[in-house]
Structures are given as structure tokens and as C-alpha cells.
């Protein structure tokens, strides 16, 4: 008997990290993906890639920031159980400039927190109906402590972490439902293309493989790679008097 395909819906599928996670899934599973994003050309390129890797793909374009978007309609568009809901989109703005314009501040929070929360809430309901499955969202090490260089982005990611924590509590008694927060450290993706590279950067292929590993094992909170846990531990443990003298 052949195993049924692994079925995933991915919001913000065009993200390089999400793409890498999906490729990783195709290495060990026959897979069926619904790729959700805002740009049909990009989604089409990604679908071709994943099809070559052997997955069945369909695409769906939508405005992530429109509060009237009916997320459950997308989830119910295809019948059957989903093994994974992955929420991946995000944006890292030029913070100094954004802080001077309320609309930019609101936009950053909308992309990195509000839309994640809206989608995650819808997925939580779908999981409850299914009785099983995994919801994973991509947070960031930036959410672990407010730092002068990126606290706008970081605070949205912190909000997401708390939201995912709460969902984990909500589903704690449903033992076949898993809530996973992936926390990549600095990753060499288009989001960081303009940031000078240091040895702390990981490749999307590496982060994708570790991310899939965390999803497969239903790790509640996974630093990618794992050594970021210790770096962030040290950063959180640094007393403010000292921390505020750094340029982090």
C-alpha cells in the first residue's frame, strides 16, 4: 500500500525559507501543496520547482493585509485533511525610516503580526475540526529581546510567539494537534540580501532542512540552527545597563 501524500497549505509560500522547507518535504514524501501568496508569477515559478521535485501543487493569490479576506474559504477549497499549515511570510523594513511614519509602523505590524494571527486563528479552528495536524509559523530570534536595530520587526515576532504559545495551550489536550514556532537566526535569503554576511548566517537549505525536522518532530519552539538558543539566552541574560551600551 502506498502512503497517502503529505498535504500542506503554505501562506507566504514564496519565502525562500518556506520554499526550502517544502523541497525538503519532497525528499522523503509524496506531497501535495497549496501555495498561497500575493504574486501569481512567483507562485508559478515556485510551483514548477516543487513539481520537478515531485510534488503536486496548486496556487492561490490573495491580499494578506485585507481584513475581509476569508481564510477558511481557502483552507476548505480542497477537501480532505491537511497535515501541515505553514505561515511563512514576513518583512524586514528599514526601521529608522519606518519609525517616522505611522503608516509604515502599522504596516510592519500588519505583515509580521496581525496577518499571522488572523491566519493562525483560522488554522486553529481547522485543526480542531480535523482533530489532527500541525500548525507551524516562522517567528524569529529577533522576537527574543527588543534591540535598537530591529525592535519594530522583533516586537511583532514576539507577539507571534505569544500567540503561538497560547494556541499550544488551547490545543494541549488534543494530542494529535501540534503547534510549532520556528525561530530562524540570520538566514541568507532575499530578506537579508543587503545585509553584509557574517559567519552567523545560515543557508536557506540548512534552515529549511532543520525547519522540516522540527515540524516532523513537532518541536514546540525550534531555534534554527539550534545554537541560536544559546546566543539568545546570553542576549536575554545581559543586564540592561550593559546591553544598552551595545549596538546590537
Amino acid at each position, binding site marked *: 500500500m502506498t502512503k497517502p501524500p503529505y498535504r500542506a497549505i503554505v501562506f507566504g509560500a514564496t519565502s*525562500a525559507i518556506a*520554499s526550502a522547507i517544502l523541497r525538503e518535504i519532497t*525528499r522523503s514524501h509524496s506531497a501535495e501543496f497549496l501555495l498561497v501568496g500575493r504574486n501569481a*508569477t*512567483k507562485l508559478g*515559478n*515556485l510551483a*514548477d*520547482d516543487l*513539481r*520537478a*521535485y515531485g510534488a503536486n501543487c496548486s496556487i492561490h493569490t490573495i491580499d494578506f493585509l485585507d481584513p475581509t479576506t476569508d481564510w477558511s474559504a481557502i483552507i476548505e477549497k480542497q477537501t480532505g485533511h491537511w497535515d501541515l499549515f505553514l505561515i511563512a511570510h514576513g518583512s524586514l523594513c528599514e526601521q529608522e525610516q519606518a519609525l517616522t511614519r505611522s503608516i509604515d509602523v502599522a504596516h510592519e505590524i500588519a505583515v509580521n503580526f496581525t496577518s499571522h494571527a488572523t491566519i493562525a486563528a483560522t488554522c486553529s479552528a481547522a485543526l480542531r475540526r480535523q482533530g489532527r495536524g500541525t500548525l507551524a509559523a516562522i517567528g524569529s530570534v529577533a522576537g527574543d529581546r527588543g534591540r535598537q536595530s530591529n525592535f519594530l520587526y522583533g516586537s511583532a515576532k514576539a507577539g507571534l510567539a505569544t500567540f503561538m504559545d497560547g494556541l499550544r495551550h488551547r490545543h494541549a489536550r488534543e494530542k494529535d494537534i501540534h503547534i510549532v514556532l520556528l525561530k530562524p537566526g540570520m538566514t*541568507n*535569503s*532575499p530578506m537579508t*540580501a*543587503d545585509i*553584509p554576511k557574517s*559567519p552567523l548566517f545560515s543557508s536557506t*537549505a*540548512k534552515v529549511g532542512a532543520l525547519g522540516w525536522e522540527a515540524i516532523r518532530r513537532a518541536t514546540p519552539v525550534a531555534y534554527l540552527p539550534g545554537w541560536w538558543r544559546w546566543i539568545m539566552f546570553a542576549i536575554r541574560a545581559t543586564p540592561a545597563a550593559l546591553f544598552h551600551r551595545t549596538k546590537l
Partner: protein
Amino acid sequence: MKPSAFHSWGRLRPAIAQRETPAWRHEAQANPGPRLAIGLGRSYGDSGLLDGGTMVDTRFLDRLISFAPESGILRAEAGISLDAVLRFAVPRGWFLPTTPGTRQVSLGGAIANDIHGKNHQLVGCFGNHVPRLALLRSDAPQQECRAGDPLHAATIGGLGLTGIITWAELQLRPIRSAWLDVEWIRFHGLSEFLALSQESTTWEHSVAWIDCLSTGKQGTRGIFIRGRWSDHAELDLHRDAKLRIPFDLPGFTLNPLSIRAFNALYYRRFRGPTKHLRQHYAPFFHPLDSVHDWNRIYGKKGFYQYQCVTPTTAGTSPMEEILRLIRNANQGSFLAVLKTFGSLPSPGMLSFPTPGITLALDFPNRGAATLQLFKQLDTIVRDCGGRLYPAKDSRMSADDFQRGYQRLGEFERHLDPAFSSDFWRRMSRPTPQPRHP
């Protein structure tokens, strides 16, 4: 945007350029000039650099587009690494038609330098296996070029100067195993090397390592390495490198003593005249990939690679002379590689391989002394009708380039006016002054 520093593999001196990183094919731009595409930066010299211009970094153009399992034709974006191609292909029973000594090169880079591998004598160059590619030029909308088109022939080995390759098709070759049956055979002198090459026609892959510092009456000592795909039916994939050289090692790490010691150890790594073994493709084809950033062992000053080919018609004496000069100068590093090129022509107008013997050897940068030695070697290469490999070069003369590449005039008709490189600027000057890094 602040300009960034770009290093080539030899790390002699960085180019300072604007960086563009298109994340999707439709985001790549061929305007305004001057610009140049960059893949994974594994070229040694300045052919992959453009100081003061715009470098189009293709690293995120790494998607597959389609794969035909009946024919083995893979269409992929040009920034995909050969490492990623292997990760896709090997479990499905396919392999690269030919591979360089590292998996960390991009599809676009492999085409633009029309790279050669250990099976050149049988299958020709990489460009012999690229039926189609798409080219984005500053003076035309994106176009598809097929084998046989002049623009295809100009782009194969075209050093990135005909525009940006956005995607390409690659004809993979089927394999039943990820393993090779391998033989290591000790030899002395070039005539033994040639004899071994000639009797190895049933071996798909062959190459030789030589100890460029060895002396002795029998001539240069070396190990002839040949391999063919094994029947051992396992399609296991390579692993990631675990080691990394995190910074430039002090310049004295590599000196004639340590290199002599390395070579002696390498030469003695097996007993008796020959050894038979079964090797996975990764250590067989890509031994240096087990350490990330190994180029940093050469220290801050960086290093050169000298790769030339001397034509079959010239016999072995020019290469003997080259080896003698290198030995006397006491300059070469470890891992000198000798290989015979076959006669299958590549479509590429500027392809480097031509029937004969090729030598590739790293040299720590000792400034004027190193450049002086290269000048002497150039004379021999020039006199025997040989040529140098632009992918490895940071100092050849424009004269030698023009003499070595007879189809240059034909190639120049296909240059994209917005594209250039530091190498190309050097080659276009009537009398280039080699800059001391």
C-alpha cells in the same frame, strides 16, 4: 545602496561593486551597464569580477523549472549550484554530464566558463550538454538560444560577457550507483603519464596528481587516478562539509617545507604500485569540498592558480619544461593536477580545452617572484601554441589571450554592450600592465 566587496576564489584583491540580487527570474536586469553576473565566485582570478560596476548576484535564482525523466533533461535557473542539482538528480539515478573539482559552482558559472571534468576525453565540456539556455541582454528582450545558434556558442565559455543566463537545460547522464571503482597508479615522468592516459580508454574518468616539487632522475612523480561507475547499486547522496576555515591563516602556513611534507604524505598514502578501491562520487570528484573556505589557508595575500594546456602536437617537452621551471623556482603548492583533454570540440567560441595536456597548480602569492615565474611559463605555453584558462587567471597578457583564442573576433560580435569584467578590461587594453596586488 552602499557598494559591497566581492572576492574571487584566489582572494588577491576584492572588487568594489554595487550588488543586485534578483530573487526571481523576472527581476533580473541587464541594464544599466557596466554589469556582470556572478555565480558562486569559484573562479580564481578577475574574470568573474567587475570593479566599480554592478554585479548581478544569481544565488537566489536556484529553482528547477522542469525535469523530463525519460530524457534526463533538467531545466533550471542559472543560479542553482551543482551541489543542489546532484541532490535532486542522484536519488533519481542521474548525474552531471561532467563535473569540476567542486560542487559549489552555479549552473550559469559552469556554462560561462565551459568547465571541464575528469571525463573530458569522452564527453567534452559542460557546454556539450547544454541543449538550450535563456539569455537576458541589455539590447534585446529575453531570448532562448539552442545548440547550433551563434549566440549559444558565444555564451558557452562566454565569460558572462554576452548577458545574463537566466535558465539553462542540462542533459544529465544516468547512473546506477553513486560509487565508482577507482584505481590509483604511481608513475614517474610525463611519458608514463601519457601511456597511462592512453591505456585508460575504458575508464570514463581520469586525472593525475603530481608532486611538483619532486626531483629525481625518473622525472616528476605522481599518482594516476582513474575511475568508472560501479555496479554497487546504491544511490546515496553526499553530505555537507563539516569543517570550515573561519579566517585567513597566517601567510607562513604554506611554505616549501610544509608543502614538501604534504606531498610526501600524499604520495605515500598507499603501498605498492597500484591500489584498487571503491569511492563515493564526493571524495572522487570533489575532495576539497570536505572543507569550507579552504582558500583561506593561503592567508591574506591570496593565491594564484596557473592552468595551461599544451597541444598534443607539441609532445611532452613543453610540459616537461614547465614542470622543471616550477620545481626550480620552488614555488608551486600541493595538489598539482595533470589531465589529458580529448578531441571532442565544444560549441563554445572561447572554450579553454583543446586536445593536449593541461596542468593546474596553485601558487601562494609571493608578489613579483610569482609573476616572474608565470612570465617564463607563458613563453613556453605561447611557443608551443597552447593557452591559459581565463577562469583561473588574474594576470595573463592581452597578447597571449588573443593569440590563444582564435575565435575571439567571432565572439566579439556577440558581446553585450552593457557587460564587462575586470578580466575583459585587461584583455582589451593593447599593452596591459599586470597590477601587483
